[in-house]
């Protein structure tokens, strides 16, 4: 196998890109690191690391509070970052960008507040509609909401390729449906769901839609206005930004209709023991001191991605996926779980007769990082009647030769076991 023979149609300077990621240039267990666990979290470029360090070494102060210069500077950078995010996903207003701890936190914010917004949650009972391929973080918060409100959780089935069964989705959408919560890209199967079409159908029945975009935003252009999503959630750390910072995009009218999520500083206009009035958007949903350096790092991550071009990233990763799929399938007994027509750069697989844990352990000995287990999608694994898979998820800094190493490593493991 020789990656040099692979035609590259994308203008992407991989060496230049990789030079910005210090963590990629290390040896693990004596081998140069091959990092294929990008679905769990991505590595960070120097500009992001510098932004975090620079905040603590030069700008450190609290935001939205002080009249002093440092606080002003930090607040300016913080609010500029909000606008960077707004432009990145093409939200109408920066008021629609709420900083959270991560995708999980964003989903929990909505699942905790939505039932208290009569405009969004009309009447008793009802149904919450999710799909079989959801991550636990887009299942459990809704189960908790259902327990609290008496609503029922309904699940859209998928076919053997790992695609939503369209007719079943249409059947399940009804006047009982209170909200549809669906992943844009499956973290396990890589399936890219037809969310624009799904949102259109839900809106025909006036049903709001929440999109879990954690696995989509790092890999493709997301335009929330074009999608007409009501809520769109994603995390910085999967898109070369810092951990502990996430985004909730919500249509302003819906965010205004919901009560605050948590009480505390920043989210108030005035407080007295008799009555407290809440702040306007986006601060209403940002109680307490935020993860300032995380937000500043996120802005740099977006600038870095924009510098390469998200379309270029998408195309390059697609070539990585096609190359990996082709060569992995050459391994006897290897089966890919998730063969949807529209796929992002995620490959989950099993090898007949070898446990995923054994594969992950031995690949690690060769310096190759993959994920093994159920990837927080236990119901999905049950659907495919498997307990665990190996997942290789690629980012734009991965190379064809790294995929060669994975394939060679797997062949070596097959001989060992």
């Amino acid at each position, binding site marked *: 196998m020789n990656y040099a023979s692979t035609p590259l149609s994308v203008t992407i300077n991989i060496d230049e890109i990789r030079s910005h990621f210090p963590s990629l240039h290390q040896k693990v267990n004596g081998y140069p690191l091959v990092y294929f666990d990008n679905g769990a979290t991505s590595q960070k470029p120097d500009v992001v690391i510098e932004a975090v360090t620079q905040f603590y070494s030069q700008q450190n102060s609290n935001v939205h509070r002080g009249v002093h210069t440092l606080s002003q500077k930090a607040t300016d950078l913080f609010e500029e970052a909000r606008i960077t995010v707004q432009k990145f996903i093409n939200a109408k207003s920066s008021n629609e960008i709420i900083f959270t701890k991560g995708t999980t936190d964003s989903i929990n914010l909505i699942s905790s507040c939505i039932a208290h917004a009569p405009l969004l949650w009309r009447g008793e009972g009802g149904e919450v509609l999710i799909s079989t391929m959801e991550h636990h973080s887009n299942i459990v918060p809704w189960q908790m909401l259902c327990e609290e409100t008496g609503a029922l959780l309904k699940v859209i089935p998928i076919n053997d390729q790992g695609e939503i069964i369209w007719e079943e989705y249409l059947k399940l959408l009804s006047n009982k449906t209170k909200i549809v919560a669906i992943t844009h890209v499956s973290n396990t199967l890589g399936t890219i769901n037809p969310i624009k079409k799904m949102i259109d159908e839900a809106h025909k029945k006036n049903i709001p839609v929440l999109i879990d975009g954690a696995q989509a935003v790092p890999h493709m252009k997301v335009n929330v206005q074009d999608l007409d999503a009501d809520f769109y959630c994603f995390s910085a750390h999967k898109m070369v930004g810092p951990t502990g910072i996430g985004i909730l995009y919500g249509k302003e009218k819906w965010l205004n209709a919901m009560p605050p999520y948590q009480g505390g500083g920043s989210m108030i206009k005035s407080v007295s023991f008799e009555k407290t009035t809440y702040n306007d958007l986006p601060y209403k949903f940002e109680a307490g001191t935020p993860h300032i350096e995380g937000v500043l790092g996120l802005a740099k991550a977006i600038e870095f991605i924009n510098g390469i071009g998200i379309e270029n990233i998408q195309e390059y990763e697609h070539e990585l996926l096609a190359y990996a799929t082709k060569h992995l399938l050459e391994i006897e007994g290897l089966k890919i779980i998730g063969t949807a027509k529209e796929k992002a750069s995620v490959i989950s697989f099993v090898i007949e007769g070898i446990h995923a844990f*054994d594969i992950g352990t031995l690949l690690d000995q060769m310096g190759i990082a993959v994920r093994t287990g159920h990837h927080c999608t236990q119901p999905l694994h049950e659907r495919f009647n498997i307990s665990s898979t190996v997942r290789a998820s690629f980012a734009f800094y991965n190379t064809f030769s790294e995929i060669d190493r994975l394939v060679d490593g797997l062949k070596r493991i097959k001989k*060992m076991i």
Partner: protein
Amino acid sequence: MSIAEKEIEIVEEFSLFDNWMDKYEHIIEIGKELKSIDEKYRNPEHEVKGCQSKVWLHSYLKDGKVIYEADSDAIITKGLIGLLVRVLSDEKPEDIIKNELEFIEKIGLKQHLSPNRSNGLVAMIKQMKYYAVALNIKQ
């Protein structure tokens, strides 16, 4: 042979390997040689929780000593528990309870004791000791 002596023996055995592949091939070999647990113990009741791979453990007393039988659906895990069974099985409960297993670290498999591994080695050792305590009370 005492627990400590068995541990020394394993450390010597592993000192022969100078690369990871030989070491893991040996663990895989131990896994393959470990007798599979009786089908009737392959149930949730005998499962050691907290593992990415499935691990089953059964124990009983024979002449005042604890006999362990264990199994896993992953071969490396099975090899690792094979080592544990070799060290702790056929020993008195009180010796098992007070023993601090040192061989795992000495043979360079410390990473398998990390909670992140979730391969059940830590859970497995804990469960083996629980069984020893329980069987000790029964005596």
